[in-house]
């Protein structure tokens, strides 16, 4: 088969404009498809996090601005069997609705951040953060996004001002969980006092870390039972479920976006099939000559199919590379209700994009290749095209 590789490649290059346009079309389709995959993967990462972390929120409240739990619930929750640690968190966000530029402040005990998160500082110091009440550590993706979106370069020692909140950057962190990089972590006391409203003694939520092997449902029920008849009842769920419910509206939209991705693949299939049919019609006579020389119909089929798969694969690979570059460089994310979905490139996204494009090449090439292989030689030799 490889003996005919120069013929296949030269054939594709003969109509280089047509080939280039088809490759570009395939690249655009695969780029959009990969983008959709990245959005879905980001959502999946958020909503299927392990069950070892619970979030206790105020019952019947859905926005972080309206959830006010007593801070001292921390001590009660800590005593529930199976609980390893409790982190009270005050949340402040500049926008509760869905937005591409949500900034979320998590106010918590500074010394706990290092214990419960996998953050690694790329600049600044933990000591600086823990020692100063008005400091914060900022996720790297947020820093990149502020720089690219509003031209605000944020680095250690700079002031970050969102609304009436003003913090000094003590460090910039990275995290395995890319969504965390969209958040700002600051001191709990600072966030409770600084915005003019006295929230001392209340927090938005308690993050509950369970001991290995503990049953999350059972513990969530036990926590809620503790406060059922108390001052403010809680609604405790695993972090994944909690984030999924916060992003409910977005989830529906993202589900819809999936169809857009499929539609792009459908268009790519039609585009490739059309171009390959045109190529076959242009070369009816050429294929007949090949068959006269002794090339079998099966080989003609494989030659045409190879052309289609090469174009599709080339376009797919280009689309994947562009998607990876754009996603990596843009630090894009969408957030709602103080929960952020990060769009990041992944190996599985890239592999899916490449494999799907190759499969589309095969599907799109079958009908034209069959047509070329089954054409009557004598009739085709008379063809003037």
């Amino acid at each position, binding site marked *: 088969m490889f003996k005919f590789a120069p013929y296949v490649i030269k054939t594709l290059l003969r109509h280089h404009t047509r080939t280039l346009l088809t490759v570009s079309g395939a690249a655009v389709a695969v780029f959009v498809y990969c983008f959709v995959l990245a959005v879905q993967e980001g959502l999946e990462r958020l909503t299927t996090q392990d069950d070892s972390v619970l979030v206790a929120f105020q019952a019947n409240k859905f926005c972080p601005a309206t959830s006010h739990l007593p801070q001292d619930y921390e001590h009660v929750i800590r005593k529930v069997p199976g609980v390893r640690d409790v982190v009270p968190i005050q949340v402040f966000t500049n926008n509760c609705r869905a937005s591409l530029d949500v900034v979320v402040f998590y106010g918590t005990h500074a010394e706990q951040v290092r214990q419960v998160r996998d953050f690694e500082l790329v600049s600044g110091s933990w000591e600086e953060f823990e020692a100063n009440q008005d400091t914060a550590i900022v996720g790297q993706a947020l820093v990149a996004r502020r720089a690219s979106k509003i031209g605000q370069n944020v680095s250690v020692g700079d002031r970050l001002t969102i609304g009436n909140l003003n913090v000094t950057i003590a460090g910039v962190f990275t995290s395995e969980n890319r969504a965390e990089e969209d958040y700002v972590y600051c001191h709990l006391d600072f966030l409770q006092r600084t915005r003019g409203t006295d929230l001392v003694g209340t927090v938005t939520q308690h993050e509950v870390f369970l001991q290995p092997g503990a049953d999350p449902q059972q513990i969530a029920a036990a926590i809620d039972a503790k406060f059922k008849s108390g001052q403010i009842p809680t609604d405790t769920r695993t972090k994944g479920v909690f984030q999924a419910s916060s992003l409910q509206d977005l989830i529906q939209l993202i589900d819809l976006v999936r169809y857009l991705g499929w539609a792009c693949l459908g268009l790519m299939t039609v585009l490739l099939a059309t171009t390959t049919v045109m190529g076959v019609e242009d070369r009816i*006579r050429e294929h007949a000559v090949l*068959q*006269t*020389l*002794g090339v079998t*119909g099966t080989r003609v089929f494989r030659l045409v199919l190879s052309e289609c798969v090469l174009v599709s694969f080339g376009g797919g690979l280009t689309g994947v590379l562009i998607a990876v570059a754009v996603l990596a460089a843009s630090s894009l994310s969408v957030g709602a209700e103080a929960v952020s979905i990060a769009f990041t490139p992944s190996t599985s996204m890239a592999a899916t994009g490449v494999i799907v494009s190759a499969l589309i090449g095969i599907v799109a090439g079958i009908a034209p290749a069959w047509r070329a292989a089954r054409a009557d030689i004598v009739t085709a030799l008379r063809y003037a095209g």
Partner: protein
Amino acid sequence: MALIDVQKVVKQFRKGPETITPLQETDLQVEKGEFVSLMGASGSGKTTLLNLIAGIDRCTSGRIVVNGADITTLSRTRLAQWRAGNIGYIFQTHNLIPVLTAYENVELPLLLLPMSRSERQKRAEIALRAVDLVDRANHYPRQLSGGQEQRVGIARAIVTDPTVVVADEPTGSLDAETADQILQLIVQLNSDLGTTLLLVTHDPDVAATAGRQLKLVQGKLVEDRRAQPAVAMRQEAV
């Protein structure tokens, strides 16, 4: 036994409500090394007979045996494989593959045979030398004249050392001078290499260069003349 044995071959096809019969119970035997011209008016069935012998068309009934193989019983794939090893086809309009160089066009039929790269290279060079086009080996068809293109077509037809070379109006699209050169080359193939040649033409002068001249009228062989080829006579005279 004849190299080519055509037995009561009938070819019919339908064109709308009409059934057309370009060949009617045709019999023909061609011996190894013969140079046979098939002459006749348009629609006489000469190209149809050539295509049937070359295995690119199927007869409606009858039998065609070439070099001991009954090609009428072969499957489409087997027939293609048989053509690769047994038939060299010279087209009227050259039909070179435009994206391949002269060398690559000549090498193309060899890709279908079990052969090493060096063997392919050797054979392609010999074939190009035979048509005096070694210096144009890396030229694309668009960079060649009509006569040069046809010579590449001839090299492509002989490169596999086929059992039979068939030529369908090989000089039909060339000017008189170039046509004469091409014809000389074809005659040489037969006389020097002993290649069995079947040539279709409507030109009596071209037909006269063959050692055996057949004439078809309305799908029937009406004349079978064996004569000393004109070119050979000229050569002898010289």
